[in-house]
Structures are given as C-alpha cells and as structure tokens.
C-alpha cells in the first residue's frame, strides 16, 4: 500500500522560473508521484476551490501554474518516499519570498 501525504502552504511571493526549477529538480529525486495544486486567489475570492494542478517533476507544468503571492499551494505525494517528498517541496515553497525570482 503506497503512502500518501499532502501539505498546504500559502506563498509569500510569486513562483518564478528559478524556484519552479528547484521544485522539479527536487521532486525528481523521489520515486513517489508528486502533484502541486493551486487554490485561492490573492484576493481570497476563490479560496477552497480546486484550481490547476501540475506534475511537480515537469518544470514547464509547474511554471504554467502561474502560482502567485498569497495563493495556497498543496503538495501531494503518493509512493514509498511520499512524506519526505512533501516535506522537501514544502521547504522550497516556504523559501519563495516577495523578493524572489
């Protein structure tokens, strides 16, 4: 039975190309399937509504999410190293700051 974990974080800055690359490089180190899901606009208007999702291992898909400051990003992983994968990617998302690019 594969393990499944998820955790949600609110972005402090926009998810630009470089952190998107860092996410995908990190996600590729895990055998678990890892998905990112975005919900909640910066204005709070659609919080809780299911938004776009992306395979975290595909940098172009992650960039296409266009996740921005104030949005909630959920990391979901399924597989033998799911917990570590979620912890690692949440760590990278937590480091995304307003000044980041």
């Amino acid at each position, binding site marked *: 039975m594969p393990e499944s974990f998820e955790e949600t974080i609110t972005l402090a800055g926009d998810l630009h*190309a*470089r952190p*998107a*690359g*860092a996410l*995908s*490089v990190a996600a*590729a*180190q895990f055998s678990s399937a890892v998905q990112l899901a975005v919900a909640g606009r910066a204005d709070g208007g659609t919080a809780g509504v299911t938004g776009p999702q992306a395979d975290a291992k*595909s*940098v*172009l*898909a992650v*960039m*296409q999410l266009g996740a921005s400051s104030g949005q909630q990003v959920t990391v979901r992983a399924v597989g033998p190293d799911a917990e570590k994968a979620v912890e690692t990617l949440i760590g990278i998302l937590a480091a995304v700051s307003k000044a980041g690019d």
Partner: protein
Amino acid sequence: MAARVGIVLVSHSASLAEGTAELAGQVGGGAVTITTAGGTDDGRLGTSIDKVADAIRRADAGAGVLILPDLGSSVLTVRTLLADDADDLPGPLEVADAPFVEGAVAAAVTAAAGGSLKAVLDAAQEARHARKL
C-alpha cells in the same frame, strides 16, 4: 555524484544561444553543463559545424549529450556533423525535436536532477505540448 547529461544549444544567433543557456542553467540550479554553438565562425547569423563539434566536446561529462537546434539549417548542420564525424565525437548523442527555450529549460532541469539521456531527450520533446497560458 554520477556524471550528468550535457546539453548543447545550436542557434543561428550566438546571443540567442547564450541567453537561452543562461536561463536554462539558472532554472536548472547551475548543476548542469550547457554549451552553445551560435552563429558562424566569423560572427554572423548562421551555424558552424566546427562550433557544434566543439560544443559537444565541452558538454560531455560521460553521460551523453543532448543537442537542441533552433531552426532549419541548425538541424542540417547538426545532422551533417553526426553523419560525417560521429566517430570523432563523444557519445552517446541525441538530437531533440523541441521548442528552443522550453526544450532547453525542461532538458536542463531533468539533466540537473540526474536523468538519463533518454529522460532528458523526452523532457525536451514533451515541451512541444506544454502550454504557456
């Protein structure tokens, strides 16, 4: 750490190749070797077989090299080189049929993550289907 796949960007324009290499290298976290073959030997727009061969040798770290041409005669130049001089080049080599910027970024991330030459080729070629809006 095992050797990573190297990436060669072949463009008619030296500045296009170098700018794309800079962007892809940064998105990949600086962990992958990306070399460029842009412009002719005398600095005009065009492609150079000698520049491509040199870029392949500089990109090789023992895990194979992915070559990404931009347009038209870049592809012909790469094909001519591989047909005539493959024995004098490090290998294995693959040529990606992919959009230049998206393909370079996707390939750089997969190479930085330690992906095989096949995985890096697939990542570049899947970029054809990536939407940007």
